[in-house]
Every structure is written in C-alpha cells, then in structure tokens.
C-alpha cells in the first residue's frame, strides 16, 4: 500500500514536502526543459504540468544486457535532475537496484502490476531470446525473459526499451546471434514502445522520456525506429562541431597526424556520425564534459540498428561491409575464364564450319535450279 500512497501525491506537493522552494521548483523545471531538449520558453508549461503530475510506477526489467544502461543512468553525476526525476518516479522493481531479493522481489513486481494496472511504465534493458529460441539462455527467477516481458507488459501503459539491445537486439543479436535475441519491439506489438537506443544510451535521454511522460501524460513523438524525435531527430553529423572541417574537406587521416591534432573531421577514420541519430553531440557525456568525437574518436553509430554488424568501426562509412579486393579479383578472373571460353568456343565453331565448308560454284547452283 505504501507505493500507492506515494503515487497519489502530486509532484509539486512531494517536492515542496522535501523543502524545495518555488524558485527551486522553477530551477528544477528549467533544468528539466534543458534535459528534455525543449526550449527554455517551455519552462512555465512544464512547471504547471509538474505541479499537477503524479508519480508513475515503473517496473524495470533487465534481460540479456551488460548493466551498462543502468550504470549510465545511476553513475551520472550525484544529485542531479535525473536523480530528482528518479526520486519522483516510483521505481517498484529493478532487480539490480532494489534491496529486496528472491521471492520478495518478484512479489514487488506482481504487486506493482496489480496496484497500477493500466498505468505503470515498463522499462526494459537488454534483448531477450525470441519465442522460438531456447528460453534457457536467459531467465529471471525461473521465468524465461519472454514470458516475464509478456506478462509484465500485459497491463502496462507503455514500454520504454532502454539501450540498443532492448531497442534493436544489440550485441547479443550480433551475427550469428546464438541466443536468437530479439528486441522488445519485435515481440511487443500491442503496446506503445519507445526506443531509447545507444550503447549505452545517454542518461538524460532515459530520464527525459520518463519526464515527458510525467509532464505531458503521454509518450513523446517518435521517429521511424520509435525513438523520441526530441533527442534522435538530428544526426550526430548535423550537430557535430567538426562539421565545418568536413565541409572544407579537412580530414584527420590517422589518430596522431596534424589533422587529428587540429581537430579536423574524423570521417576517414571511420566516423559513422553522418548516419547516426543521437543526442550526444549536444548533450555530451559525463555531466556534459565531452563526447567521443570531441575526444578525438569517430562515432561508432551506437544508437543505430545493426551497428554491431555494420563493418569495421575504423572503416569509412562508404566502405562496403564485406566485399574485398579479392572478391572482385576472383569474380573478374572467373569472368575472364568464361569470356575466354565463350570466345574460344566461337572460334572453334568457326574453324569447324570452315573445315566442313563445301564451296559451290555458280555452275553447280544453276544446274540445281
């Protein structure tokens, strides 16, 4: 019952209860707007909505994952907006973070599902063995991931797939995909699914989506891959501060040449920024300190489906994923052989015809007629 009481309070109330003043609340809203990639002019709208918002119950399921996504979220700098948002949601089940273990933990999940049927959010990190593969590859408390997901999602308001594994299958899905890993969206067809991809996803994006749900009571606008447009609407390349170098044709050609030192574009070192949609070019990592391209490393494309099977990380985007010069040579040689054979045959036929040729004279022809 404790969980229920907590969710009945509005957010404004519970913040004020914690001694947050109105100016503090305004500041919280400004930070939330910044986190949600909304313009600062939205601050007052956010304030009005948050004042009335109720804490949503969240059930967090971890399947075939490395816990990097949870790390990304919890290791983000101490007391932050993210924390505040996390404090104001009611995280009722997260088997890495919760204190309860064993049956008590599972009980918490079932209770939360009952108490908030139709209202709770399910957050998933990690992919899961598909319905047709061996469920034994990944189980929690004796339940297969698939069964647990389907059961939990049944009465959920929406599902947030956190990280590229939950969103697209991720590393477990890498060829030859031994566990038959699938993404949440592959199996959850009857509930709204939001994909917060990234390996790991940017913590502010995870909380940003939760905050959006909290504030507006609905899920954010999504792109074709079900990713929230506010964060995934623009490519890394379009927001990259190295872009002027790309446009001028100034490229680093190795990791320690003159170009690398001068901060030129990393395209030739394999940057997948042009085809990758994520927010790290502006939101950055580690409390806004920096991000991979700023640190001199090309983007791996970690927020895109199949980035794990998309060819070499240090090969330019235009390089095909598998063909090699050898393939071309081989094909060419085969072609030359075939061509030679065809021509030789034609020649032989001509010769044979020539040998069989029986000249006819005009006289003979006239006789026949």
């Amino acid at each position: 019952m404790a969980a229920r009481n907590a969710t009945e309070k509005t957010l404004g109330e519970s913040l004020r209860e914690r001694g947050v003043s109105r100016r503090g609340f305004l500041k919280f809203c400004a930070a939330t707007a910044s986190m949600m990639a909304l313009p600062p002019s939205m601050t007052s709208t956010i304030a009005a909505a948050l004042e009335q918002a109720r804490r949503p119950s969240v059930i967090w399921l971890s399947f075939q994952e490395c816990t990097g996504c949870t790390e990304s979220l919890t290791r983000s700098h101490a007391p932050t907006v993210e924390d505040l948002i996390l404090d104001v949601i009611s995280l009722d089940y997260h088997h890495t973070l919760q204190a309860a273990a064993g049956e008590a933990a599972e009980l918490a999940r079932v209770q939360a599902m009952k108490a908030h049927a139709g209202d709770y959010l399910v957050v998933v990190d990690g992919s899961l063995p598909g319905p047709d593969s061996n469920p034994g590859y990944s189980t929690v408390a004796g339940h297969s991931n698939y069964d647990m997901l389907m059961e939990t999602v049944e009465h959920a308001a929406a599902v947030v797939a956190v990280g590229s594994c939950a969103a697209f299958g991720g590393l477990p899905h890498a060829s030859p995909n031994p566990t038959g890993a699938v993404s949440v969206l592959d199996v959850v067809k009857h509930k709204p699914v939001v994909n917060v991809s990234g390996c790991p996803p940017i913590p502010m994006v995870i909380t940003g989506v939760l905050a959006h749900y909290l504030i507006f009571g609905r899920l954010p606008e999504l792109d074709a891959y079900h990713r929230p447009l506010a964060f995934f609407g623009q490519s890394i390349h379009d927001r990259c501060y190295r872009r002027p170098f790309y446009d001028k044709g100034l490229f680093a050609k190795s990791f320690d040449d003159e170009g690398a030192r001068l901060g030129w574009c990393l395209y030739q070192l394999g940057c997948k920024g042009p085809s990758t949609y994520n927010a790290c070019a502006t939101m950055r990592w580690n409390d806004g300190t920096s991000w991979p391209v700023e640190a001199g490393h090309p983007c791996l494309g970690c927020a895109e489906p199949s980035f794990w099977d998309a060819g070499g990380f240090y090969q330019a985007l235009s390089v095909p994923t598998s063909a090699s010069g050898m393939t071309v040579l081989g094909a060419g040689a085969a072609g030359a052989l075939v061509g030679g054979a065809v021509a030789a045959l034609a020649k032989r036929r001509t010769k044979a015809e020539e040998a069989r040729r029986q000249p006819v004279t005009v006289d003979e022809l006239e006789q026949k007629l």
Partner: protein
Amino acid sequence: MSGSMEFLLWTKGPMFNVAIAIFAIGLLVRIAEIFVLGRERNYAEPRASEWLPGLRTVFTRTVADPGTFKRAPFNVVVGWVWHIGFLIALLLFVPHIKLIESLTGLSWPALPNPIISMVTAVTLVALIATLIHRMTHPVKRRISTIEDYLVWTVVFAVVLTGFLAFNRMINPYPLVLGMHILSAEIMLILLPFTKLTHIFTLFIARWYNGAAFGRKGVQS
C-alpha cells in the same frame, strides 16, 4: 525489423557483393571475348609499328575533330561537361576514394567537398540537357532506343541520389545513402550488358583503329 538502416546495410553488404560480382564477371566475359576472338590474321607485312599510333589514337579521339564539332556542337560540349563532371565526382570525392582504397589499396588526394557538390550540380543540369536534346532533336529521337533511355535514367539516378545524399536533402540519411549505393549497384550490374560498356571498350576500339592506321598494312 526493416528500416532505412537495414536498407543501407543491405546495399553495403550482400547487394554490393552481388553487384560487384556480376559487374566483374560480366565485364571480363565481354572483354575476354573481344580479345580472344581477336582480329583476322594479317598476312601483309606491316610498314610501321602499330603500338604508338594505337596509343595515340586512344587519346586523340577523345577530342572531337572540327568537323564533328561544327555538325554537333551541343553533343560535344554538353557531353564533355557531364562526362568530366561525372568522373570528378566519381574519382575525387573522399567517400568514393575510401571505397576504392578498401577494394584495391590504391588511393589519391581528393577535392574539397563543396567543389564536388558544385561539379555534381553542373553534371545534373548537363544530363537533363542531354535528355531534352535527345527527345526533341528529330534525328536523335528516331535513333534512340529503350536502352538509351534506360542508360540515361540509371546514370542520372546515380548522380541525383549522390547529390541529395551529400547535401542531406532526404531524411533519414541512411535511406538516401542506400538509394545512392543501390543505384550505383544497378549501374554496375547493367554496365557490361548495355552501351555503358563503352567505358572500357572505347579504349580497345580506338586502339584497334589507330593500330590499323599505324601499321599501314592490308587487313581484311
């Protein structure tokens, strides 16, 4: 799940392999055939070497003689413009060089991207001009076949999608990049079996011509 990224990876992976294999096999079949069939044996004694004139003609025929220019200035000028534009974009754009390097190990300096973009725009305009000319010129219209239009479409699609991709004019980017790669692959596949083969055979033909003139012998 099937979206723009899967499409891009398909064009960069399996489809690329198929296209490059068909291209290499097809082209070598054609060229080997031409060489193995060879020319008629020549019994007359050559009066000069055939190598130098052969080579010379490969180059001299590149420039239209004054007569041709007078008769069809449009063909010469516009033809030149778009062929050169196409070659510049193909051979001097960083991503293309990277692709060639990955297949052959050879690489060379590139031109800055904005120049490539400009050249591509000019090429597009020239290509449209050639199509209009083909469809309005009374003689050209009559001698044009389906194949001519097919070849034009494929070449135009390659240049257009490349331009759109570079300028990021279609969203999402993987979709337009995939379209560009796919149209280039279609071009590769069609190349050995259409007039596009001239990219390679024109040098052989010119060499034969020049060589024949050079040796000043008699040849049936």
